[in-house]
């Protein structure tokens, strides 16, 4: 399924460096949120690059234009990776960095799943298979009004087990929602089992194509590749677009990368410090904290 680029100018070295540095800081935030109650660290790390890229380079959305009907939308349907969103918002200056210390505290609204009390978060999610249907409604309205908003939905791959996603794709195809872009964070994991070992999704591109999407597959951690793919959206007139972003769960932390037992992480403070070192390429971490926590 090779697709040519539409000829978007490549990102310059400075832009790449900026994205990489931002993503690194977002990962630091995610790691710091992975203690004192913890969070869904692995899934957050897999989509951090995607989210940083989209907000910094692709989408026209910020707390200042949320009431602008022509702005773009990013719906995070795999809501448990919201620490990547919190971290990105902190780096973009949409929320104060210090606020991340309120993670899981009752004095704020920074908890395990997204909510609209944080400006910039589009909708509540966490229950899987919801935001593709919601985004279909938004895309329908934008079409009705003749507006060219980009409507991006990030889904998990395990999330695609939920039938409502496929329902929504049927409707998106029927209504020719070419303003809709589905991005699958293809980290190859359900919660604690590999997708292909439980409910296989492959050939995922063929499945999405069969449901009416024009599909591209990219390395979800390569900013140049992401830029090429996202710049080409919409991939076709009258059909929704889909990007399968091949990612690694836990990306950036070799100690937890692609480990089935590191889904929800609640590290000790010592582990957090070691993991921050590890993120920066210094040493590896011996993890003793509880695994396979169900949240």
């Amino acid at each position, binding site marked *: 399924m090779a697709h040519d680029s539409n000829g978007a100018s490549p990102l310059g070295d400075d832009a790449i460096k900026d994205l990489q540095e931002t993503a690194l800081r977002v990962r630091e935030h995610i790691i710091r949120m992975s203690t004192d109650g913890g969070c869904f660290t692995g899934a957050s790390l897999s989509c951090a690059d995607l989210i940083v890229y989209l907000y910094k380079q692709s989408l026209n959305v910020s707390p200042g234009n949320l009431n602008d009907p022509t702005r773009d939308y990013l719906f995070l349907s795999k809501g448990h990776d919201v620490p990547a969103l919190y971290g990105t918002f902190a780096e973009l200056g949409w929320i104060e960095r210090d606020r991340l210390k309120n993670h899981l505290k009752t004095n704020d609204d920074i908890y395990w799943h997204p909510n609209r009390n944080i400006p910039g978060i589009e909708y509540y999610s966490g229950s899987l298979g919801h935001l593709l249907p*919601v985004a279909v*409604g938004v895309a329908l*309205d934008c079409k*009705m009004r003749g507006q060219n908003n980009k409507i991006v939905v990030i889904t998990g791959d395990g999330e695609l087990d939920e039938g409502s996603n496929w329902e929504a794709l049927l409707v998106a195809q029927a209504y020719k929602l070419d303003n809709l872009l589905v991005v699958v964070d293809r980290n190859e994991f359900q919660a604690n089992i590999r997708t292909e070992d439980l409910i296989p999704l492959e050939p995922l591109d063929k499945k999405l194509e069969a449901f009416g999407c024009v599909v591209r597959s990219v390395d979800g951690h390569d900013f140049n590749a992401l830029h090429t793919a996202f710049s080409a959206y919409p991939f076709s007139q009258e059909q929704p677009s889909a990007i399968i972003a091949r990612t690694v769960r836990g990306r950036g932390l070799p100690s937890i990368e692609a480990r089935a037992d590191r889904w929800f992480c609640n590290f000790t403070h010592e582990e957090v410090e070691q993991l921050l070192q590890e993120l920066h390429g210094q040493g590896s971490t011996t993890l003793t904290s509880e695994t396979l926590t169900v949240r």
Partner: protein
Amino acid sequence: MTYEQFLKNLADRDERLVVMTAENRAAIRGLPPLLGNRFIDTGITEQTMVGAAAGLALRGRIPVAHALACFLTMRAYEFIRTDVGISGLPVKLVGYVPGLLSEANGPTHQAIEDVAIMRGVPPLNVFCPADFNDLMIGIEKIVLDPRPWYIRYTDKPHAVEHSTEFEIGKAEQFGNGTDVALLTYGEMFRHAFQAREMLEAQGKSVRLINLRTLKPLDEEAVLNALRNCALTVTIEDHFRVGGLYSIIAELALENRVTANVEAIGLDNKWFKPALMADVLEYEKLRAVDLVERIMTRFNALG
């Protein structure tokens, strides 16, 4: 005015209105050419319809979304609860053939727990008109209300001339008798109305309350009935759990009111599928059955 005309007129006046359906077009068949792209049929996808309705509402629209009451409220329940309920966006959910109106469809199609589950979603309100006229009297205020609503749709001809004064949370009351208060909503209203006449013919003083909106509830009318009538009767085509009887019980307890209450509804079972007249007879929900049960209870009050 027909229901379609109402939606068409409102759509002309208010650009926020969009009409949706999960391929249940019974009441809105003529609308597609009139509304153009503001008529959205998502196919047999109650979940996606409700999710998309939330998305449309997020963009400032007022979606009026139609499906069979049982599939709308149950297949899509979590989408209602999560996508509409948590946000509180003004999505209007219109359920066809609720309660006994599903007649011979069978238990798969019986929405007789819909009031219980819809009122359980915090911001969601519940409108249960007695008949088509009652629906049309209230519908505009419901659709333009800034909150989300569940509407028990009915196209049944009117049982009586209804008061055209409609206020959300205000019941329609017939009479002010103190022997028996009949509290009801929806399709059972017509039978309760008949029962009232029969009870009065037997010398009982009766009040009949058509609640119209079960949430918010006309607490004053209900508490007056509980406090001032020898016997209060709840009459509903719904499971006893979670419906009007439960609502009254909650209200009474909150207000430290004790009362004699006879609960007439569907007790822990689905009803016998058949045409309406036969269902009513089989389930003992005809006016004559209601009267018999009410008089038995009334005479036992001592």
